[in-house]
Structures are given as structure tokens and as C-alpha cells.
């Protein structure tokens, strides 16, 4: 707890500060560039649903090659790099220590970027490992990503090991845990000798959900445990509840992967266990969300024109998206929604409404604390509203459309009817997605101005967050 009291560091030199600042700056800039690129691809894909002839006549522009580029780059480039940058800053600050090694951080960043560039190029050339989803990069590239994780784990652990506080702040439990567990996921996914046919389906189910739930989720939760107390100037509501959520998340999450393959030839018991633990996931999800919301309670003025808005949406995205995930795991509901566009809406509610908004909240809320440069408040506000409204349109369109799609199938209509009935919803998805993409350009602009875009911080209006710092 005492780690949270202040952001000033003990016994740190200006060089240490400079190194941490540069690492945080460059990680965030890289992530923002990847966000713009990956969501540009997303917009192209959304257009292809509306105009199938759009950019279609060459192999490297075909839908099936661009789609994994969009998903893998949002996952492993944008979100991963953005989260690791924040995790470094939080590890150093909450431990009142210097970042253990800037050099290691640069090696890690280079490896993340090499993996993402190589993954993008190979997928576009039609070199796809074939195991859906999020596992499409061929194994040498995933090995590079694994190396980036190992370097990151080392650096985070060493930073916390040299802490000048007694306790390890909760955020670091989540971020260090997330990186270490993901190393195991990566190894399990890469080793090929035990995954054939149905065996590979089982591994895919495991991988698909663990890559999300034990990488992005703990990283983002860890950031929330640091950012919310900072932005609201009060300690986390219950430290014990946070520890409880940590362990329950760890134990329940790895078991639910097979719910991606309900009604498949996977053994029925494996599917049923996955459903049972999908329900159990409500425990850490509601414990975590309640903890965050109770920390924010009664201070609405802190939300006004503040990065805390991003954090609030992120927490709600976590609560709603994860609870929705539990609902989707029931056989009765999955019968309607599985294989429809509803699941695409769900993955955007979680990866965007939760993870991406948490990263934005973290960047807007924490980056100025080390660069001394706030984002322009108006531009930050436009970014927030476009992204939020765009996401709501996106998720609603695909949730409603996906439900119609599923009911069309159940009613035994000709398949093409389900395609025709989706048309207006795909159009709305493209509109929502377009707003989201435009907001990302603003984010990139804002990051530039929080890092290198200006020489000296001008006299800025003192925001609530600054007063809190």
C-alpha cells in the first residue's frame, strides 16, 4: 500500500528517470502506430463485407489474408507493446525503483516489433500456420515473440526485486504473472509433436482463450490497480479482494478454453467443464470490477474531462464483456450465437471496450506524469467520444445482426438469407469501425504531443488528475 502513496522516487538519478521516460515514450508510440495500422486493416475488412469487390483482385489484398493480420497485430503488436510499456512504468514507480535495464527493454521492444512485422508480411504472402485463432504466425515468428516475453519477464521481475518498498504492489502480481504465464502458453502452442487432428482442436481451444485471458486480462487488470488509485487519489477499495481475484482468475481461466468448441467432436466432459468454469469466472470478474468501481465511487468530479473516463469504460467493458462471455458459454445460448457475428461483437467489446480503453486510460493518465506534457484536453475528449460511440455502434450492430443470423439458421432459411439479413448490420459495423479508426489517429497525435511533439510543457490548465498527482 505504501507504494501507492507517492510518485516521487527515492534515490533515483535523473538518468534513471530519463531512461524510464524514453522507454515508456517509445513503447507507447510504437503501440499507437501499430494500433493505427492494425485498425486500418480492420476498416478495409469491414468494407469488404459491404463491398466484396473492394480491393479483392490480388492475393495480398484478399480478405482471408488481411483478417489474421488485423487480429494478430491488434493483439501482439498494439495491445502487447502498449501494455508492456505501461507495466514497466508501473513496476518502477510502484517499487520506487529504477527500471532494471533499459537495454533489455529495447531488446524486448525490438523483438516485439520484429515478430509483428514478420508476422504481417508472412501472413500477407499467404504463409499462415492455419490453426485459428491468434496462432496464425508460423512458429519461428512466435518464437521471437516468446523471446520478447522472456526478456520482458526478466526485466519486470528484476525491477521489482530491486524495489525500495516492503511489499510488492498488487499491479506487479498481475503484470509479472501475465508475462510468465504467457511464456508457458506460447511454449504449449509452439511445440507441434502432440497436436494432430482432434488433439490440435483441444490445444486450439486452450490456446485461444488463454492467450486472451492470461495475457491481456491480467496485464490490463494490473494497470487498473495502479491507474485508478492514482486518478482518484485514494487507495484501492480492497487489497484482499484484489488478491482473491488474482488467484481465482488464475485457477478458473485456463479451464474454460473448450467453450469455443461446444458441439464439436471434443469430448463432452471437456466441453461441460469449460461451461462450468465459465460460470465460475463471474467470481473474479465481479470481484475485480466491484473493487475498481468501489474505488471510484462518490468522486464523479474526478471523471470530468479526465483520462479516468477511459478507465471507467475499460472497467465497464471488463464487467459487461466478461459476463457476456459467461452467458455465451451456455449451450442453449451458444446454439444461437456460436459461429455468428455475435462473437465478433463480443471480442471487440472485450479487446476494445476493456483492454484498449484501459491502455488509453493508462497512457493519458500516467504518461504525462513522467513527460510533464498533458494531451490537449479537447482532442482527448474527441478521441474518447468517437471511440466510445463507435464501439457501441459496432458492438450493438454485430450483437443484433448476429442474433438474427443465428435465428435464421434455426428457422431453416436458405443460408444466403442469413447473409442478406446481415447486410445493414455490416454497414453499421463499418460506420462504427470508421469512427473508432478516426479516433485512433487522434490518439497517435495525442501520444506524439505527450512525448516528443513539443519542446517544453506550456502552462497547462491544471486538471483534476494533475492536482491529484
Amino acid at each position, binding site marked *: 500500500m505504501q507504494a501507492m502513496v507517492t510518485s516521487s522516487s527515492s534515490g533515483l538519478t535523473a538518468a534513471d528517470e530519463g531512461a524510464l521516460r524514453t522507454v515508456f515514450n517509445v513503447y507507447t508510440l510504437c503501440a499507437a502506430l501499430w494500433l493505427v495500422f492494425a485498425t486500418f486493416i480492420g476498416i478495409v475488412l469491414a468494407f469488404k463485407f459491404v463491398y*466484396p469487390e473492394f480491393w479483392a*483482385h490480388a492475393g495480398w489484398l484478399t480478405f482471408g489474408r488481411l483478417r489474421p493480420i488485423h487480429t494478430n497485430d491488434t493483439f501482439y503488436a498494439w495491445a502487447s507493446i502498449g501494455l508492456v510499456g505501461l507495466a514497466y512504468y508501473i513496476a518502477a514507480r510502484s517499487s520506487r525503483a529504477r527500471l532494471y535495464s533499459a537495454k533489455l527493454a529495447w531488446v524486448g521492444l525490438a523483438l516485439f516489433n520484429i515478430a509483428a512485422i514478420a508476422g504481417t508480411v508472412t501472413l500477407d504472402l499467404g504463409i499462415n500456420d492455419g490453426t485459428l485463432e491468434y496462432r496464425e504466425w508460423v512458429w519461428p515468428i512466435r518464437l521471437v515473440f516468446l523471446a520478447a516475453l522472456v526478456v520482458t519477464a526478466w526485466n519486470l521481475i528484476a525491477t521489482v526485486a530491486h524495489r525500495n518498498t516492503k511489499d510488492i504492489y498488487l499491479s506487479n502480481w498481475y503484470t509479472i504473472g501475465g508475462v510468465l504465464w504467457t511464456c508457458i502458453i506460447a511454449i*504449449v502452442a509452439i511445440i507441434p509433436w502432440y497436436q494432430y487432428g482432434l488433439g490440435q482442436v483441444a490445444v486450439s481451444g486452450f490456446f485461444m482463450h488463454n492467450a486472451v485471458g492470461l495475457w491481456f486480462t491480467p496485464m490490463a487488470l494490473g494497470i487498473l490497480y495502479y491507474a485508478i488509485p492514482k486518478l482518484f487519489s485514494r487507495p484501492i477499495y480492497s487489497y484482499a479482494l484484489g488478491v482473491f481475484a488474482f488467484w481465482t482468475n488464475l485457477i478458473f481461466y485456463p479451464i474454460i478454453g473448450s467453450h469455443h468448441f461446444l458441439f464439436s467432436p471434443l469430448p463432452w466432459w471437456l466441453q461441460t467443464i469449460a461451461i462450468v468454469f465459465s460460470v465460475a469466472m463471474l467470481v473474479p470478474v465481479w470481484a475485480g470490477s466491484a473493487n475498481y468501481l468501489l474505488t471510484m465511487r462518490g468522486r464523479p468530479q474526478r471523471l470530468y474531462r479526465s483520462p479516468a473516463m477511459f478507465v471507467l469504460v475499460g472497467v465497464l467493458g471488463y464487467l459487461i464483456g466478461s459476463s457476456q462471455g459467461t452467458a455465451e458459454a451456455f449451450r442453449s445460448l451458444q446454439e444461437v450465437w456460436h459461429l455468428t457475428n455475435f462473437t465478433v461483437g463480443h471480442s471487440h467489446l472485450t479487446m476494445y471496450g476493456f483492454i484498449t480503453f484501459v491502455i488509453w486510460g493508462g497512457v493519458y493518465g500516467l504518461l504525462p506524469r513522467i513527460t510533464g506534457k498533458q494531451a490537449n484536453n479537447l482532442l482527448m475528449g474527441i478521441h474518447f467520444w468517437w471511440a466510445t460511440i463507435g464501439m457501441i455502434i459496432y458492438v450493438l450492430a454485430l450483437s443484433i445482426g448476429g442474433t438474427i443470423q443465428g435465428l435464421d439458421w434455426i428457422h431453416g432459411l436458405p443460408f444466403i438469407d442469413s447473409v442478406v439479413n446481415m447486410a445493414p448490420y455490416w454497414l453499421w459495423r463499418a460506420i462504427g469501425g470508421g469512427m473508432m479508426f478516426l479516433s485512433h489517429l487522434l490518439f497517435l497525435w495525442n501520444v506524439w504531443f505527450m512525448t516528443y511533439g513539443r519542446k517544453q510543457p506550456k502552462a497547462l490548465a491544471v486538471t483534476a488528475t494533475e492536482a491529484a498527482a
Partner: protein
Amino acid sequence: MKALILIAGGSTLVYAILAVLMGVLPGIELSKTPPGPGVESLTPLAAKGRAVYVANGCSYCHTQQVRPLPEDRVFGRPTAAGDLVYQTPELLGSERNGPDLSNIGNRQPSKVWQYMHLYDPRSVQPLSIMPDFSFLFRVVAEAPPGVTPVALPPAYAPKHGVVIPTQKAVALVAYLLSLKQPPIPGYVPPAVPMPSAVPSTPAAGGAPAAAPAFDATEGAQLFSQNCAVCHQANGEGITGAFPPLKGNAAVLNDDPTQQLHVILEGLSNTNVGGTVYPGAMPPFKTVLSDSQIANIVDHERTSWGNNAKLVTPAEVATERAKLKH
């Protein structure tokens, strides 16, 4: 230091155990699944086609898993564990923006259709949103000997020359046509309600008291599901690829024998109105019930200006019974 080891090491140990239990062990165990009856490995050409399928991300929109649910029955029988033995990487898929392909080799065995559809999906299904795979084809002035150019309606054909498939397209079509679910001995699909309780001594020979009615809605819907991808919603077919049903002699004939025979048994290399159609039509005897076939036939006999004598389920049953001898 102790706390760090406990948190980082302890949680990682817990996770490693869970990863082995939920990922690695099921993987090892299920990889040993034996092949189901009749499940065979791919031919080299089909295997090459599978690689094209993977490289171009077909499985982002097409599943290869038929669930044991009523709405999936149109795609085939439920996928069984033994079906996936030679399927690495697995292509079960997660989204159905297009139909399931587990049994496409049986459902749509026409090479002619597959090539047209790949070159430009809208040439056979105007409402399709599938991307075209024209980059797997070449336009040449003249097809080399032994190569059949892709049959295309004028609106979709290039202005000059003809379209021929590249090796990749040939392989991909070979793969698609290899996707045939082998029947599981002893498994009777609950699939289509088969009202086989039709009297075995049909009254077809006698004079019907009134003009037999049919379920026009079901007829139109079943036609759209099973027939329209080739014969088209307007019944005009595609010249040189799929025969028209509008004005078709077999459809207008008061004696339905030929029409019923084609639907039940399928057909290939036929001559309709002086045009030779090289494609293959799949048999529907195991897919559709007598009353369903009667509704489709009657839909065809009363649509697009056709006006021919209606058939009854009993007549279909009679024709079906003849096949068995």
C-alpha cells in the same frame, strides 16, 4: 525476495500444472483418435489444395464442423472425432459468414460450378459476399489443349479470351471436392423428416378427385436452398454451365418420370435443348423426402411461366421405389 518467488513462481507453477491438464494432456490423448470408417488421407493434389485453402484464410468464413443441432443438418451429418484424423492444421473454424464445407464434395460436386464460383462467386450467386479468387485464374487467348476454360456467363467473362484455372485453383477445387463425409455404419441421420408412410399402392393411376395442391412456400424455400445456386432463382440456369428449368422439356412433360429420376439420382453430361452441360448434379434421394421433392417439382412446374401437371408425394414414392429394383 521470498514474496516475489512465492507470487511469481507459485502462480506460474499453478498455471503450468493447469496448462498440462487442460492443454497438453487432452492434446496428447485426443491426437491418438483413430480414423473413422471410410476416413482417408488426402491425395497429394488435394493436400496441395488444402494448403491453398489455409494460405488464403478460407476458414475465417467457412467452418468444417457440423454440430449435432437441427440447424446444421443441411450441411451433413454431425462431425465425428474420427473425421479429423488427417486434419492438421485443424480447420474447424469459428465463424460462418459462408456455409459449412465439411461435406461440400457431396453437396456441390460440380467442378464447373466450383470454378465459376471461385473465379467470381456472384456469377452463380448474385447475393454472395465472398471475395472473388480471380487471382487463382489466368485469362488467355485460347485454352491450351486438355484444359477446360471456366464456363462464365457473358456478364462475368473477360472481354477477350477465356479464363483458365492455375495449378492452385485446380488443387483447391480437388480439395473441396474431396470433402465428403463418409457414412457412419449404423448411423441413421435424424436429418430430414421422411414421411415414408405414403401408401405403397399409390392411387396415382386413378383419376384424382381434384387438382392436387402443394405447399408453395416450402417448395420455393427448398428450391432456393437446394437448387438455385446452379439453376438460379429465375430458373434460367447459366448457358453452358447449368441447364434452364424454365421451358425445360422434362419439367413441362406431364409424365414426371424423367424429372423425378434426375432429382433422385443426379445427372451429369446432359444435353438440354442442344447445349451440352458437362457438370454433375448431385443425387437428392438421401437428402430430401418424397413430399419435399414433390413440393420442389411442383414449384418448378408452376414458376417462371411454366405451367405443367403437378405431381404428388405418392408419385415420388413410386419413382423412388423403382430405383431400388
